[in-house]
């Protein structure tokens, strides 16, 4: 599983097969899943904001696999598509075949801080503890999820659905989320400080800087910081971190 890990960041890829069935109202289970996820978009913030250490994540439903039908750039494609002297049987043989999935899949792709031990179990346990009910809401129509009613079973289930990344690239950094949020808060606040203190005399800048440090508490993650997932400037700062 090492290619799921880059530094302290972890790439979790989950494909959970959705049952092929319909509700009494004749709505496909996959469409219910889609609709519920769509509903998450209309909430004040994503339920995933409550899941510790989540950097970025996404959900979608994989209905089928796709095949671009125009001629491509590979040697075989070019030859068989364009050379008229290639026998028809060979041309047909080389044409891409049409694939279709027999199940639809709920895809969950997540980047999180796993720490030096790449703690997938800890992340999934945190996810279950934070939003267990919301997880059931989404995964409830998936094959094999019926028995999942606690964190341990959820971890086992997710591992059965997990795919290994072939390459995971971290273009950002892999610090714990609290560190990243605190750093962003400091960057924002210090930029304001620098603007507000332009051209002031040395003694005033020093006094103001001390007051600034007392307010923002740069080394204290439990001090003022950014809220995870906040998308409005007036909701951005969390003065005291929520515990648990």
């Amino acid at each position, binding site marked *: 599983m090492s*290619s799921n890990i880059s530094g302290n*960041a972890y*790439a979790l*890829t989950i*494909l*959970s097969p959705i*049952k092929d069935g319909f509700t009494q109202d004749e709505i496909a289970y996959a469409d219910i899943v889609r609709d519920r996820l769509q*509903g*998450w*978009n*209309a*909430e*004040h913030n*994503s339920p995933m904001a409550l899941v510790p250490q989540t*950097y*970025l*994540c*996404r*959900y*979608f439903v994989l209905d089928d*696999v*796709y*095949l*671009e039908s*125009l001629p491509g*750039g590979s040697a075989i*494609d070019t030859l068989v598509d364009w050379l008229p002297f290639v026998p028809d049987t060979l041309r047909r043989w080389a044409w891409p*075949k049409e*694939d279709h999935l027999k*199940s639809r*899949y709920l895809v969950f*792709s997540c*980047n999180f801080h796993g720490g030096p031990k790449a703690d997938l179990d800890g992340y999934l346990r945190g996810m279950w503890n934070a939003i267990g009910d919301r997880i059931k809401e989404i995964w409830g129509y998936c*094959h094999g999820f019926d028995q999942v009613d606690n964190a341990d079973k959820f971890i086992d289930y997710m591992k*059965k*659905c997990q795919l*290994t990344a*072939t*390459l995971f*690239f971290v*273009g*950002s950094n892999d610090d714990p989320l609290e*560190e*990243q*949020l605190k*750093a*962003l808060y*400091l*960057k924002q606040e*210090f*930029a304001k400080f*620098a603007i507000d203190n332009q051209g002031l005399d*040395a003694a005033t800048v*020093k006094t103001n800087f001390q007051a600034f440090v007392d307010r923002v508490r740069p080394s204290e993650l439990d001090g003022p910081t950014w809220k995870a*997932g*906040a*998308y*409005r*400037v007036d909701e951005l*700062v969390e003065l005291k971190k929520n515990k648990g």
Partner: protein
Amino acid sequence: MSNIAGKAYAMNVITPIRPYTTWVNKFIFWIAVKIPGTLKGLITLSLIHYARWVIIGKDQFPHLDPKQPKEELNYTYMMFFSNFNGSWDQYVDSFTFAIPGGLDLFWKWNIRYSKSVPLTPFHDYIRYNQIETIHYYNAYPLAASNDVKSAKTVKSSLIKFEQDTRNVSGDNFLKLYNALLRGLQHDMGDMYPTPIVSMSAHQVERRQKWHAANLPEGGAGPTGGTAPKEAHGHSAKKGK
């Protein structure tokens, strides 16, 4: 549909590979993992938060229940997930312009892959094989990948400066402070929402405005009861 969360865009692309050439792709990725220097080109694309490639063998789609039909596929599939800043065009084009060769290697012999140059067939290829995200979450919607990286520099510099200048007074302090600002000039900057921060934020905003305009104070909440009651008064709040 929500491919956008704040400043990040979620791209999902699925493409088929002939099973008997899959080893070529796996080998290329293996080299990239073993020799990180080969990813130098990707690192120059500083707009990327995180990206990954996942190759799924034709018999490797998760099968969890005897009642679930087994997949019978002709091809192996490669899934590409990326989190980046900026628009779709900016991203796809920056790949083409910065690392066309690397891109062609990663998608080597994917069926009907058009190659990254010229642009138009490449755009068509990605567009055709792209799957829309339904729900996308970003822990810092106001920050770009470069903000996250530069914030780390600001934080460590600030902590060090504070420790180093505790007993420094007067003009010396100002000198060191100015040096700090000069050193951080590429890392400073205010962060604000982009005009539409996320599709979900946009929807919430629209609904709140509608409720504020159409419903009496204390009236019925929105369907599903998920929006907070203080929605009406949020604009009056003024945060730091």
